[in-house]
């Protein structure tokens, strides 16, 4: 029995609340022990996708060459986190902690956020333990997340963290510090001399701060490094790194058992390449007539699609993979079903007769637009998916930065009008395997813009290009919009919406449709013949 004195104004706490507090006592966790609670399968999936979004944001930040933890980097990450609705993670990273005694609900949200963070980490371990490449990606991203969280902690928080994790580090005494102060002043990078006087320093074996050693950012003597609190994160980071790597290795050994469950198997297998960005299934504005494709392909298409277009024009044919890749892209940029049919028919019938075209290829196009068969409007391929393809000879698809050999690529880029310096800039990325960066560089060159685009989807490339050229005006000014209705099988009626009045309706409808589409896409992913999201791990 809990006797509470009525005079004390005690906040009412739910029992689960207290439990959460005990389980997740700090914003920053080392993820030592796996969670033991039961969760529903849909929460399992939800948590996994949520964390994946977070990690993808970190990846984008690094691909934008922003210096890690610089102001621009933090600005970008924070903006993306809130834009994607990842407020929980945003708070964990920026340590905008709520005081439990004053703001109860906020504190509860925070505990929930910690819980989600904790559990999702372990879920993703299962998805990323399979291959060396996946492991490396996961570890890099997780370390970025960890260091961000840690760097936002106050000294009191750090102390609490050290206690919770039973880490015995104590700062140098005044006398000890005094004896090495010259070395500290000289060799501690990143802090002013006055700051060095004030900060706590820890003496640790150099093997614990290899990052600082390698970049000569600390005083080193007799095998020991003298590290201040700000750089302390390096030490703890090593612990975290080891913990995660160890965990991944254990996961790898157990993964077979976990995969015995079909539902989990499917989710984990496709997770890394699942597309968590914008859904380009719908194009919002402007009907793009096929007549303009020649021009558009030169101005606003990434080279994967420009390739397909040119191949189609010269060979009057595209194999299945190419038709899927290019056809869906066209849908995404705003080519209507009728126009798409017309366009492909025009080209193909230069080699085969109309009847053959109708028999062999028409159905496929209807299918892509969700008019036949499973009635699902498929989403255009993202860069990740395209890069993974392995086209053979005469199969125009995949990412040309990857599939073309360097000399052929150089010739092609030159033929598009790039100067040799520019060609070299693009090739530099290609040779290092950074295909998406090469595409972003191509974008920058073609548009003569300082904008460095982080390309992750061909339709995004197109949209950004059109935006830059002023063709895609803001939503407000649109007066024609093409919409695919939610109902199955309903015919397409182009409605003229007055942009001002129906913005909100539009947003709601679009969100609904994109959720519906992605759910359907997920379900249909295991169709034998139209496998959009399967990957080989």
């Amino acid at each position, binding site marked *: 029995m809990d006797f509470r004195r009525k005079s004390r104004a005690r906040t009412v706490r739910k029992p689960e609340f207290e439990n959460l507090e005990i389980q997740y006592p700090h914003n920053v966790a080392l993820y030592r022990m796996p969670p033991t609670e039961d969760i529903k399968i849909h929460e399992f999936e939800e948590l996994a996708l949520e964390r994946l979004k977070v990690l993808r944001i970190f990846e984008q930040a690094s691909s934008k060459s922003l210096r890690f933890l610089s102001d621009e980097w933090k600005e970008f990450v924070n903006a993306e986190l809130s834009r994607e609705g990842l407020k929980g993670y945003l708070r964990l990273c920026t340590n905008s902690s709520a005081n439990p005694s004053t703001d109860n609900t906020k504190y509860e949200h925070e505990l929930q956020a910690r819980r989600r963070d904790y559990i999702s980490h372990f879920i993703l371990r299962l998805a990323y333990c399979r291959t060396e490449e996946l492991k490396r990606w996961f570890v890099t991203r997780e370390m970025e997340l960890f260091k961000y969280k840690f760097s936002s902690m106050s000294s009191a928080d750090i102390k609490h963290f050290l206690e919770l994790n039973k880490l015995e580090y104590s700062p140098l005494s005044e006398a000890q510090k005094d004896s090495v102060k010259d070395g500290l002043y000289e060799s501690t990078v990143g802090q002013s001399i006055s700051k060095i006087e004030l900060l706590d320093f820890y003496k640790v074996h150099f093997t614990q701060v290899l990052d600082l050693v*390698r970049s*000569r950012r600390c*005083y080193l003597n007799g095998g020991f490094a003298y590290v201040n609190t700000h750089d302390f994160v390096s030490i703890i980071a090593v612990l975290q790194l080891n913990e995660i790597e160890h965990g991944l290795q254990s996961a790898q050994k157990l993964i077979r058992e976990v995969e015995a469950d079909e539902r989990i198997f499917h989710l984990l297998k496709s997770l890394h390449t699942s597309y968590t960005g914008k859904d380009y299934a719908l194009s919002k504005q402007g009907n793009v007539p096929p007549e303009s494709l020649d021009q558009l392909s030169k101005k606003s298409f990434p080279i994967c699609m420009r390739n397909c277009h040119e191949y189609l024009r010269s060979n009057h044919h595209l194999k299945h993979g190419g038709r899927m890749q290019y056809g869906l892209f066209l849908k995404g940029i705003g080519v209507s079903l009728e126009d798409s049919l017309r366009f492909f028919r025009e080209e193909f019938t230069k080699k085969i007769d109309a009847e053959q075209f109708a028999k062999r290829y028409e159905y496929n196009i209807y299918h892509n637009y969700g008019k036949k068969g499973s009635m699902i409007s498929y989403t255009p391929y993202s860069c990740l998916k395209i890069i993974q393809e392995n086209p053979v000879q005469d199969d125009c698809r995949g990412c040309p930065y990857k599939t073309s050999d360097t000399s052929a690529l150089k010739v092609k880029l030159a033929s598009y009008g790039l100067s040799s310096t520019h060609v070299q800039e693009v090739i530099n990325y290609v040779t290092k395997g950074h295909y998406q960066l090469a595409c972003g560089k191509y974008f920058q060159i073609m548009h003569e813009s300082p904008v460095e685009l982080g390309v992750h989807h061909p339709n995004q490339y197109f949209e950004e290009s059109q935006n830059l050229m002023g063709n895609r005006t803001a939503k407000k000014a649109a007066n024609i919009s093409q919409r695919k209705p939610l109902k199955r099988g309903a015919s397409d009626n182009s409605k003229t919406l007055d942009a001002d009045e129906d913005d909100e309706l539009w947003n709601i409808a679009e969100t609904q449709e994109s959720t519906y589409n992605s759910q359907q896409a997920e379900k249909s992913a295991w169709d034998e013949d139209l496998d959009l999201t399967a990957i080989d791990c």
Partner: protein
Amino acid sequence: MTEEVLKDEKTPKYDPSILPDMLPAYYKRLFPHKPFYRWLSYGLSEANIFANREFSYTLHDDIYIRYRCYDTQSELENDICSTCPHKIDIGAVMNTKPKNFRTTSTAMQPVQRELVFDIDMDDYNDVRTCCTGSTVCLKCWKFMALAARLLDAALREDFGFEHILWVFSGRRGVHGWVCDHDARHLDSRGRSSVAEYLQISSNVTVNGAVVARVQIGERMHHSIRRALKFIEPLFEEIVLEDQNLFGDVNGVNKLLAMIPDDMARKDVEAYLKKTNSDGSNSRTVWTSFVRYVNSLRTGAASIWTRKLKNIIEEIQLGILYPRLDINVTKGMNHLLKSPFCIHPGTGKVCVPFNCNVAAKFDPTTVPTISQLLQEINAFDDKSKSKENGEEEKSRIKDYKKTGMFKGVVVFEEFLRKLESSLKTKAIDISDQTMEF
């Protein structure tokens, strides 16, 4: 042993074609097997530390065999004497006997391995004028001596390492073997960090030529300050006098290429031309350069007080700071040539030298295998005649009768210290565990 070698009373010339005939005698009589074993067994302080060590041999016709391992000194000695490899490489101590790598259930992995450094004169070609290609002389050797001393100090002072063996690589470079327990157990991330700590220059291409550039930044790290303490006193002697690096138009251009700013470079070029310092001799060029820079870097705010504040020091470091082959240090499994091998090209013994007096080491007088064998034979003849034709079983090891002697002494001194520290450690451990 062919007759031709013995004919000359003077120093016999090394002939690579008869190397295979000389190696058997070398390995039998001169190679210091016992000290070699003492080194790599590390007092048997850890389980299987000798048995799991990988050795690899390069035989005649570049035939290469790996995964050799031995349980005892005599096994190793016998195999070396019967195989007579042209080169012996020392690999890592593995988690299993290297020869079993195909049959073990778990993948074979390195468990420990000395921290090694490789410095080659070839990497200094852009800053040496006295020799080219594979030749080396006392002048350019100074680069190597300086590099070894500097690294030695850094490894001892900053990292606390104590047992470092410096070996002449047989032609024009040096190898450093750090044999402390902690060094041996560093993983590849650790090695990579140490290597990067010690590598302060990066190569940039200026007008088609590669230039080693150093950036000091706001504050000078203590390791860089120490490096300058080694380098500054020798800069004049090595760069200005011996190499006369800036003594012609090319040289002046090299100096200009070391300035990381186009405008500044043009200003310096103009100043040097104006004061007729270009192409006269290195000393005048350098003095002019220093005068110019000093007047500017203590003056009004400009690039010379900011980005180029430390340009003089940066140039000195760029030329003289040790140029490591970083990949050798990073890999835990990198097979490195063993001390006391014979370099097939020069015939010289890869002999250890004392780093503290590295400047006194003369690579041009390192004995070749031909010399050594001649010395042995001469000694034998002498002792035979003394003992009335009876062959006295020499109690003095053969290698101590030759020009190799000094190198072996250095090696044995290194071993003595190493073994003493291993003993102390063993005592500490047994004290803690109270074992007798």
